[in-house]
């Protein structure tokens, strides 16, 4: 009874419609330990305040105490779905600083592995996207196909997720003799499975209703927030570093930069779906032409970078990943800074989800393809 009285007295305070909901750090749709303070009015989202740092592991600081080849192993743990690209960024940065030219074989293999990692990442994103929208079956379809890529990784690198395959100056070891055959098998297999993805989710009426026109991110906003990768390209922001600053074997292959001008959730979805096709074609162009040669150049046992600042960026599955190394000439860096795509992409969420429903917030977050350790580092 006393509670009812209290409510009666404070009725004008009750009359306000806005309320706060704490989404996360334990919440099924944040896919990790992201916490968002969401201000709601009924079902409508008024404001989102992301709180990060729940899985902060101090990777940048740890890098200052270890040598350059060791840094590579830490970058795996940031965006674990683009582990190979992260490794490559550090390796390229060190190679450029030392002006080491790696053999063509290394470039080809790196590019193929990049694209395989991108495919695996996009497949997982597709599974989870469906699941966030309530279509639980997509999860198993995507994982079924991703398993094949992980098996290829396992055979060649010995690991399935955190591959640790790159070194400054080349690769850890040569590709497995089965590698080319298995990759080609996978391409033929996955070409038949991609239409299945479209049948299950892309063409679904409910799915299109849920995504079309939702979460608009204009080109200027995308540039202002630094939203890169497929999420940025869906806003018409041409930012594919594989095209604009080609590295490894990317100058040698023909592929399209997928750009969509619709700026909504569906556009972000379709950009990723089309990128999967592009990745397949890139791998196809390279897989038969891997040149013979060494899989690494001989480097000094202790790598020391010349004094100065070095920056290298690569295109991961989520966008632009940058490595900034300040060296004072010692065997470990003075300062390392990683520019992670997830961090910038996350903060555009507020702009995109404002005014939409809770369910849309989940859908929009899903198309940003966030990986939390990538944000927190």
């Amino acid at each position, binding site marked *: 009874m006393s509670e009812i009285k209290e409510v009666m007295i404070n009725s004008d305070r009750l009359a306000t419609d806005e*309320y706060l909901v704490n989404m996360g750090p334990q919440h099924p749709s944040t896919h990790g330990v992201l916490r968002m303070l969401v201000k709601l009015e009924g079902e409508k989202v008024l404001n989102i305040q992301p709180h990060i740092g729940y899985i902060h592991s101090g990777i940048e600081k740890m890098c200052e105490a270890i040598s350059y080849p060791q840094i590579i192993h830490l970058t795996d743990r940031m965006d674990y779905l683009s582990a190979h690209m992260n490794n490559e960024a550090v390796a390229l940065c060190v190679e450029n600083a030392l002006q080491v030219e790696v053999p063509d074989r290394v470039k080809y293999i790196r590019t193929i592995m990049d694209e395989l990692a991108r495919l695996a990442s996009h497949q997982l994103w597709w599974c989870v996207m469906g*699941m966030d929208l*309530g279509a639980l079956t997509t999860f*198993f*379809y995507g994982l079924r196909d991703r398993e094949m890529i992980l098996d290829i990784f396992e055979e060649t690198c010995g690991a399935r997720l955190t591959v640790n395959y790159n070194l400054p100056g080349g690769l850890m070891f040569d590709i497995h003799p089965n590698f080319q055959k298995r990759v080609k098998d996978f391409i033929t297999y996955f070409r038949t499975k991609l239409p299945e993805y479209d049948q299950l989710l892309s063409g*679904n009426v409910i799915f299109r209703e849920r995504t079309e026109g939702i979460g608009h991110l204009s080109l200027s906003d995308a540039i202002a927030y630094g939203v890169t990768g497929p999420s940025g390209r869906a806003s018409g922001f041409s930012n594919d570093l594989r095209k604009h600053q080609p590295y490894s074997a990317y100058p040698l292959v023909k592929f399209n930069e997928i750009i969509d001008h619709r700026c909504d959730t569906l556009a972000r979805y379709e950009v990723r779906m089309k990128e999967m096709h592009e990745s397949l074609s890139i791998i196809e162009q390279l897989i038969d032409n891997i040149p013979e040669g060494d899989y690494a150049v001989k480097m000094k046992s202790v790598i020391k970078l010349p004094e100065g600042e070095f920056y290298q960026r690569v295109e991961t599955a989520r966008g632009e990943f940058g490595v900034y190394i300040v060296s004072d000439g010692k065997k470990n860096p003075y300062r390392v800074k990683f520019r992670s795509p997830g961090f910038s992409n996350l903060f555009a969420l507020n702009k995109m989800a404002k005014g939409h*429903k809770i*369910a*849309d917030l*989940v859908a929009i977050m899903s198309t940003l393809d966030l990986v939390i350790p990538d944000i927190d580092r």
Partner: protein
Amino acid sequence: MGFNFYDFTALTHNIHVGLVEGFSPFMATTLEWVIVGTAYLLFVALFGLLLVYAERKVCAAFQQRLGPMRVGYWGLLQTIADFIKLLMKELIMPRKADRFLYNLAPFIVIIASFLAIAVIPFAPGLQSLDFDIGLFYLTSVSSVGVIGILLAGWSSNNKYSLIGAMRSGAQILSYELSVSLSLLTMIIFAGSMQFSTIVEGQRDGWYLFTGHIPSLVAFIVFLIAGTAETNRGPFDLAEAESELTAGFHTEYSGIKFAFFFLAEYINLFIISAVAATVFLGGWMPLHFGHLEAFNHAMDVIPPLVWFFLKVFGVIFIIMWFKWTFPRLRVDQILTLEWKYLLPINLINILLMALIVLTKFHF
């Protein structure tokens, strides 16, 4: 006391007569209550477990996996093990929950389901309540459950629960219209609200076939609205896992959670049973007007088997929905009901009335 697998009327009648002769009228009635109640409890508990198992197997088949395989042969004992686990779990209550309503809510939900199951005709003579407004009674008691859901969301003192409960309230109240209107279409066609009459009326052909387009439309609308009524995917907004963790039953644990869980599956059974009875002839075997030989062959299969075959058919379709479609958004769900299903339904009723008036049916 002969046992006839094709007609239970004699059996149930004999039990009734035996009880009335052997005991005082008061005792006889009480004993009948106990027997019927126990039978329903047993049926619901066992059928609920079976449905959970079926759902897991169907879902597994859609998702290219095997589902439960370890406990018992082909995982048959898995759901029983799960249920025992739920029974032994600690009951946790949020500190600031409204104790009375919080404890009451699961019972309202499950009692509503029990009340509704009473009018379902399983086979000739296997129906505990058969009265002239059976279908009306069913729609009214099955909508009581939403009160339990609203109470659960409100009393848990959790915002996710509250949002879930509000969604569910809006959804069930809206779709109640479509369920009732599509049933009303069939009531016009059948000319009765009594279940036994409706089933008898389909002796020469199921209403789905004899009622032309209007009954087909009504069937489809009923399936959609029925799925929404049971809070199942793609209409599972009230417990949308990726949005609201578990919706209105987020704060429930142990046996109270099991009540919600069980109620969902009983409701699934009820919706399927009503669809099977009203549109697909209930326990009536598949008959085509004049094909005597075919009709006799169909009669060999006992009515109980017919009934459960049809029910499982409808249940499979509803499960199919859940495991293929993404979830709708709350405003889309209301749009679907008020802008599409309701007008379609109203036109459909007019069409059906015209067909009945002009006797333009088989």
